């Protein structure tokens, strides 16, 4: 029972980390290597707003999210737009921005342990004989809600459908009057906000540390590769596979092997199904 419950919690956390990355990649074919940095940045901004500016939790979280969205949009508009279509430069530029944010924060005194976000509600509850604290329950509920809302947004609003159109065929979208640059900015902003939302939901479980920025990036990437880049269903499914594999490895082998599982999953996926679980034929052609 432990394994099932913690497996679900872990899987939802992974899906939350990955969803922003896969959205940005799906829409603009841009691997946002600053994803982990935006995640940590949101947590840090929330902390600053709460502890330095004295705002309450909800307000500071919302403001931090908004700021992260703006930073994401600015990042695209000012830097990444100039290197679009040059994969090497895209990777290096976004990775460099992420590094600048993370290492800048580290220099600014962000160390593990001292910076913590409080959980939404203290205490714990017993689910099916397993004691789980409220925050982890919130992770599952909010994660599922967020993903559901996102699904509704993409399939039912005009903006969402435009994003989906861009993801499927950029040229065809252009002929239908969808401004591809504006959509890409929007996607980057939404993707950054999703990274931020994941941070606000997940960070109360631990402390805000620079290292977890790298960890989030790696996990997001692992989930996306296993699921097939740009595929939503694939990403969620992959999050569950990796999530459960990690919990099983922790239970049967030890906590150190958690990260190794992710790499193994990637390597096995790449050998057996290079385009990922739900990658389409077109993507196969593009990546292999």
């Amino acid at each position, binding site marked *: 029972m432990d394994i099932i419950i913690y497996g679900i919690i872990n899987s939802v956390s992974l899906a939350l980390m990955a969803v922003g990355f896969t959205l940005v990649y799906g829409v603009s074919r841009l691997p946002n290597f600053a994803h982990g940095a935006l995640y940590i940045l949101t947590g840090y901004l929330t902390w600053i707003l709460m502890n330095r500016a004295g705002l309450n939790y909800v307000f500071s979280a919302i403001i931090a999210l908004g700021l992260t969205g703006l930073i994401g949009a600015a990042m695209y508009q000012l830097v990444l737009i100039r290197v679009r279509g040059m994969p090497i430069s895209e*990777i290096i530029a976004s990775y460099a921005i992420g590094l600048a944010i993370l290492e800048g924060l580290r220099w600014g005194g962000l160390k593990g342990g001292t910076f913590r976000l409080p959980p939404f509600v203290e205490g714990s509850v017993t689910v099916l004989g397993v004691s789980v604290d409220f925050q982890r329950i919130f992770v599952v509920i909010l994660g599922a809600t967020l993903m559901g809302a996102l699904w509704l947004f993409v399939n039912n609003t005009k903006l969402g459908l435009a994003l989906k159109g861009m993801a499927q065929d950029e040229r065809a979208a252009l002929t239908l009057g969808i401004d591809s640059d504006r959509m890409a900015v929007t996607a980057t902003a939404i993707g950054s906000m999703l990274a931020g939302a994941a941070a606000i939901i997940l960070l109360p479980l631990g402390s805000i540390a620079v290292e977890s920025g790298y960890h989030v990036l790696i996990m997001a990437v692992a989930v996306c590769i296993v699921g097939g880049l740009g595929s939503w269903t694939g990403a969620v499914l992959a999050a569950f596979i990796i999530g459960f594999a990690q919990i099983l490895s922790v239970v049967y082998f030890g906590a150190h092997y958690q990260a190794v599982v992710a790499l193994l999953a990637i390597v096995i996926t*790449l050998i057996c199904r290079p385009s990922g679980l739900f990658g389409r034929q077109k993507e196969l052609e593009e990546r292999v």
Partner: protein
Amino acid sequence: MSSSKGDRRKERIDRGIKVRSDSVYAISSWKEITYLIAPRLVLILGLALAPLVLSATPYWQRVVSIICVYSLLAMGFDFLANYVGLVSLGGGFYVGIGAYAAALLNTHFGLPPMITIPMATLLGAIICTVLFLPCLPLRGVYFAIVSLMYPLLAARIVEALDIFGGTDGILGVDGFSNVWVEQYFLVLCVLVMVFALRRLVEEDIGLVFRGVKDNDQAVKASGININQYKALGVFIASALGCLGGACLTHMYMWAGLSQFALDFSIIPIAATVVGGGGTLVGPVLGCLILVPVSELLRDFGSLRIAVYSIVLTAFIVFKSEGIMIYTARKYEQFERWVEI
């Protein structure tokens, strides 16, 4: 071009001396010979004299060695990214493997540095190539992502299994016999590698490499196994990285987890972008600029990496050709404005 300046554009024409010295007339006069040799001589003499000039300050003399190590790494990155088309964000992995290989060979078998370094280079390159084999079919983004994970996971695994000294690393590795041997060995390595790689990419095999980068389907259609060539590319790049790592171990007489660190991944990339990708000399120039700056910033800790990243982003956005290509253009071509 904005019309307020009038309708004109910049025209670039090769200098006469460049056109002549490209062909067989290159050795027709001393002037032409000097034109060809001067830039290369500046690099060779500059690197050869640096340890002598800086011998008054042992600290900065050591920096020359570090520049050389980073230059080797940066050349490897440049070669892999701009000739084979594989962007490797995990340069630290090569350094770490090379460093550990050299340290183990030295402490377990008692081999002297001059034997461990070539052995570690070869052995490390073979290990890296084998470990990267499953990822080789991947292109651009996907390879970059996976290569980013390698050094992080390698450090995790060493830590988790507590092998090779765990978090303490391997202590008691022999140093070079003296500082001059260390410096000139490294300078020699860098110079040989620069010219050897520049020669290599002009050969037929270099053409295949570039083909793999630009249009791998076409290369496949010509009946060439692209994975074989990618493996060869990774082998060359990781050999350069391992060579750097092995030298680093003997310089510091220590091999440890910090050799998988981010510095070894990001500085070579920054140096390549600043110096000029695709030239193979550019990365060395980039290191000559960035590494001393990094030493000056040493007091600021991780701000160094942040500064690098900003410099890197700025160069990518505003001056993506890099210093080397820019200077080469000024050296070889006239520029003038022409009315249209």
